[in-house]
Each structure stands twice: as C-alpha cells, then as structure tokens.
C-alpha cells in the first residue's frame, strides 16, 4: 500500500513538473545541495557543545555511521519532533552511530535560539549526544541545509546515504506511517540499501547569520 502511495506521489509530481521551468532558471530557489555519496563538509570545524567543550563532526563520527541534525530551540516543528530526536539520537549513538545536533540559527534574530536555552533543552530532553552551536552558520550553509529539523545521515565511510525528514507526521507521533529516519538507520546498521533516501517536511527556515 505504501508503495502504491509513493508511486502516486511520484506520478503526480511528474505531471506537475510539466508546469514548472527548471530550478536553475528560478531565482533564489535553492542553496548548494549535498549530493548522495558526498562526504560531509567542514568536518573539522570546532563548535561549542552545551557542555562547554568544542567538538567537530569528525570528533563524533561513528564507525557505523554519522547522523547530523540541523535543529534549534524555537521552531515549532523541532519542538514537535524533539522527543523523537532525543530518542533516536540516544538509541543509535549507543549502537555505534555518531550523532551531532547543530544549531546554526542566529540568536540575534530569534532569542530563543541562544546557547543558554540550548543547554536547558538538552538537559530537559536528556540528550546523550552533542548539541552544538554553528556560530557562523557556515557549516549549515556548506551542507546546503535550509530548515530545521533537517537530517543528514552518512554511512561508515562518511558517504551521504539519507537526507530529509525524521518521519511523516510531526504533530502526531502516534499517527506516523513512515518512520523515514529510523528505517534508514536500521537499514544502514543491517548493511542493507536504504529504500527511501530523500524525504521532505515543512520546517522553519534556518536563520543564517549575514556572513554565512
């Protein structure tokens, strides 16, 4: 049934593409996008964690995979998914996946996204993985991240294997039909191909600092 629905979505999308012109011809449509199979950029940039230490993506990379989540404190979609972010992060970091959550938002634009609130949130939600500040927003820009939350999952050789959303229902966890990220993580750990590599969800735009 899910395959049928997915096919239907693809068919509708294909029909609708005839109504659009190529993205390249559209101003401001898309930032740089990380392609599947690419390595994560800026892996050695040190970012301040909620515990005060400075760590990089390289520091947390796991032998079985690395999960990078662009997130923040203020976005309602992040808040809706936050318990799932904590559960997935804690579960899979214990199973050998490196996990790092990155806040690239400019707190001058959204005060709730400041460092002190990150510390409170990480404690409240019992994050057992780093929640760090991308203090220039350049890491997010290099990933081509545009929204929060946005997921980038890399395999054990640091190749991008999944990009997109956590699941298909932010608001109602009990009504999730497709657990995109969990299924991708399970496939990765089982050494199987990831069936759905690219997903999307509405989210808050990242509040980039001006120099990013």
């Amino acid at each position: 049934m899910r395959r049928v629905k997915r096919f239907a979505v693809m068919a509708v999308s294909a029909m609708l593409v005839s109504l659009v012109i190529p993205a390249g011809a559209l101003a401001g449509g898309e930032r740089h996008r990380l392609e599947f199979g690419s390595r994560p950029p800026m892996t050695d940039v040190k970012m301040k964690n909620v515990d005060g230490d400075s760590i990089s993506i390289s520091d947390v990379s796991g032998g079985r995979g690395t999960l990078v989540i662009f997130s923040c404190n203020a976005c309602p979609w992040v808040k809706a998914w936050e318990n799932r972010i904590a559960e997935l992060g804690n579960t899979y970091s214990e199973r050998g996946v490196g996990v790092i959550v990155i806040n690239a938002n400019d707190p001058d634009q959204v005060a709730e996204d400041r460092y002190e609130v990150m510390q409170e949130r990480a404690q409240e939600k019992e994050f057992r993985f780093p929640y760090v500040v991308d203090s220039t927003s350049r890491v997010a820009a290099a990933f081509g991240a545009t929204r929060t939350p946005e997921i980038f999952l890399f395999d054990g050789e640091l190749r991008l294997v999944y990009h997109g959303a956590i699941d298909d229902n932010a608001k109602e966890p009990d009504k999730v039909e497709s657990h995109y990220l969990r299924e991708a993580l399970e496939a990765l750990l089982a050494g199987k191909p990831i069936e759905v590599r690219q997903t999307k969800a509405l989210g808050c735009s990242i509040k980039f600092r001006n120099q990013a």
Partner: protein
Amino acid sequence: MLACALALALAGCAGSEALEGGSDPPSGGKGSGLAAPVVLPATGPQILEAVRSPGARAVLVNVWATWCLPCREEFPDLVRLRREYAGRGLRLILVSGDFESELAEVQRFLEEEGVDFPSYIKTGKDMEFIEALHPEWSGALPATFIYDRKGTLRHFWQEKATYARFEKKVVELLEESPPRRGRGHGSKEGS
C-alpha cells in the same frame, strides 16, 4: 469537489477582481472586528488547481505559518501587493503551513493583517504538498512561487523577500503580452 470549491472561492475574489479590473478588496483593516477570515484546507495539487483557475495575469503563492518570524515580517507586504495589483490581474494565494489544529490562531493572524479574502491551510502529508509545489523546495518557510497567466512557474524562492522583490517579479508578469491566439501553444514566454 474541494478543488472546485477552491477555484470558485478564488473566482469569487481575486480572480473576479482581476477580470473586472476591480478596485481594492473591501478592507477590514487591522483589528476591524469583521467575521473570521475563510481558511480552506488544501493539498498541493488543489493549490495548483487554484493557480490555474482562469482570470489572472500573475499568481503569487506564499506558504507561511503563524510562528514563522520571517513569514510574519513579509506578510504585510504581500497584503499590500495584492491591494496594489489585484486590479491589474494579480491573484494572491496564501497557504498556511500551520498544523490544522492551529486554525484559530491562523484566522486570528489573518484578521490582524486585514486579510478579508479566502486563503488556505495545508492538509495532507508534507512531502506530497512540497513535491506538488516544486521538486526543489526543501520545505523551508516562507516559500514564494510566482506563476504567469498560463500557470507556468516563473519564480520560486524559499526565504523572506522585500516588497520591492515581490513587486518587480509580479509587475514583469503583469506587463507581459498575452500569447497570440493560434500561435501560443507551446511557445516560450520571455523571462
């Protein structure tokens, strides 16, 4: 059925104004105390049906949310744009990306901003909605899509914009000549 309702709703507002070269919509203004604005649930394909409903020279679709600060910041410019250009053929389609359970908050915001014409709230799965509007849209808000009179997407961005940017892109399309009868099929419009 819903698609028809959407098209009719639009034909009854921006569309008819465009056809008739209508004047400004009746302005409730901020905090006017008029009835709550009409907000219809719509999927991505239903929004595109509304885009293709005849009568507009340019159609601007803006996907926003009440809690989205940049959306709120650019919103008055969109309402102003409609006020200035609906009479010349602009159709403004506002689509809230809020959770449907937040409908009352959406209506409150629309009323505060003086929106006295029907608008929409996304329904259904995010991914289907996003892919329907544009395959390159990541889902970030705000997002703006501008279509020409034939319903072809001409401009798309997923960031806040200024009034000048909205106006420039819309006016370009409003000033384009309609395709000549019998020769227009498949012809490429200038950009």
